[in-house]
């Protein structure tokens, strides 16, 4: 058993999700990502269960592990009780802990996720808030969202007494004390360190790629550039 496999297997989700895959391919047949990308969860499970460190390191540096949408459709269908989605979660976590995620275009997108969803959580206590869903970055949200965005206070007031303010109701502001508890949870449980690692590895990679660090230019490039044709 290799060292990388050992690290991967420390993840409860990998232990739960990896039994003995017989390569039937049901997971690939049901997988929405496999229909859209050149992606085959069957091959990933097959590779991981070989417990070969070289193969696992190649996966951790690859585009492949970033295609899954974590719908978990694979989980109830596997006749042997494997969960490819859980293995993917384990691989992605390890790829970020080891700093390998910056070696793939899809992996580098983790910085964009940390800077959007991650920072929303740390600033507001929510994964998303209306003021951060800019119609310019979200044209697919359409004309109605543009109207909501431009008139947010008036529209939300119809449904919640506490939009952006403390008190019960939708989109209330989390109190200072609540936010302090949330920040402490991230510090104590490793969430803050994980965010810091994403920033640190991205900073190094950005400089290596000729950016002036993981600045706004780098962030917007990883957020917007579709590299599918090159992958």
């Amino acid at each position: 058993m290799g060292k990388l496999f050992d690290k991967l297997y420390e993840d409860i989700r990998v232990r739960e999700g990896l039994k003995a895959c017989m390569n039937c391919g049901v997971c690939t047949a049901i997988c929405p990502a496999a229909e859209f990308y050149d992606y085959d969860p069957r091959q990933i499970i097959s590779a991981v269960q070989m417990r070969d460190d070289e193969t696992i390191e190649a996966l951790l540096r690859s585009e492949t592990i970033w295609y899954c949408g974590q719908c978990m459709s694979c989980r109830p269908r596997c006749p042997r009780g494997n969960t490819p989605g859980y293995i993917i979660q384990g691989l992605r976590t390890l790829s970020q802990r080891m700093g390998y995620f910056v070696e793939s275009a899809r992996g580098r997108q983790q910085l964009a996720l940390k800077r959007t969803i991650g920072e929303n959580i740390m600033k507001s206590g929510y994964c998303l808030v209306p003021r951060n869903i800019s119609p310019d970055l979200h044209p697919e949200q359409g004309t109605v969202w543009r109207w909501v965005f431009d008139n947010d206070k008036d529209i939300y007031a119809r449904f919640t007494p506490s939009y952006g303010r403390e008190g019960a109701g939708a989109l209330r502001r989390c109190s200072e004390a609540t936010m302090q508890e949330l920040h402490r949870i991230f510090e104590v449980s490793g969430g803050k360190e994980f965010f810091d690692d994403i920033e640190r590895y991205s900073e190094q990679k950005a400089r290596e790629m000729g950016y002036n660090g993981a600045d706004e230019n780098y962030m917007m490039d990883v957020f917007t550039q579709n590299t599918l044709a090159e992958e």
Partner: protein
Amino acid sequence: MRRTKWEEYQKDIADDKYYYARSCIRQNFFPGSEKAFLDILRNDLGKDIFDDPLHTSCTGIGYHSDIVPFETIMTVVARQFALMHEAGYENFTSSCITSFGIYTEILNTWEEFPETEERTRENLFKATGRELVKPKSLAHTSDVIFHLRKEIAERMKRPLVNALTGEPLRVVEHIGCHYAKIFPKSGIGGSEFPYVLAGMIESWGGEVVDYPERRHCCGFGFRNYLVQANRGYSVANSQKKLESMAPYRPDFIVCNCPGCSMFLDKWQYTIAEMEGTTYGAHGHGIPVLTYEEMAGLVLGYDPWELGMQMHAVDVEPLLEKMGVEYDPSTKYLGPKGKYIGKPAAAAVNCSAGVTLYDIKK
């Protein structure tokens, strides 16, 4: 087969005294649905449900985007459970499907790997001084409405029936993947024959439409939507479902997941703008409802008080089919009756060529 199969998957759903956890996506895009859920439970059915101002996001979107570690989300979830206990409740109900999947996964993990519960308990105490007390029951809010569907039917003002023909409305139900695909035993009807929405539709006079891609994901795919470069995945999967259901001519779609409700609605806007394709009758999109909106209409609520003006696909064709008496002039009003303007027109509502965006850019 369907009729007997779903009954194999039953779970205990509390009758009263719920602790309510809000959803990041639902409160953003469907705040009227969260209000309706509380109003229906409290005002129509006389239930006790606590809307706690202290809880936060479960951080589930961050978790499934792989930026929030499992240890961290377990501790955040432990804090929600501690708050429930401190408020004097033991029946936890979550508005978000992904949160529900996460709560289920974490409770199962703690049971199977007790050392993870112990470590979470320590983390929670160290970070907040709070004590983890697990809930007696866990339900998604759609489970609660399913559980109370007959009480709602007794108070029904508008059945899911075409007011002109007297025929049942044809309804596509879409179950969020994280409702039962992670732990089939946690969902009414399991993952293959989910009955949670079908049970509501049948109890309120509608007819459930079966179609080939009924169990396919809406296409959220977390990082596949959240990162702009990857959104093709998301729209392609919604498109696959819409293409599959369209020949069955549903009158509307109903979802129990806030993300699915939003994507199946907003991607119809996008597809109409990009390709000129619409999937409903007369060149119109198919209206997409949350189950709270469906229950609210059945109980006689005003559609604009339910927040249905926030949908990309206009709901008026459905309201007219149901014989709902609505006032078009109150659709775009803010508080105190102030008119706040209205959204620009869109192809999905049969208004080609006058949109704000050239989405192809």
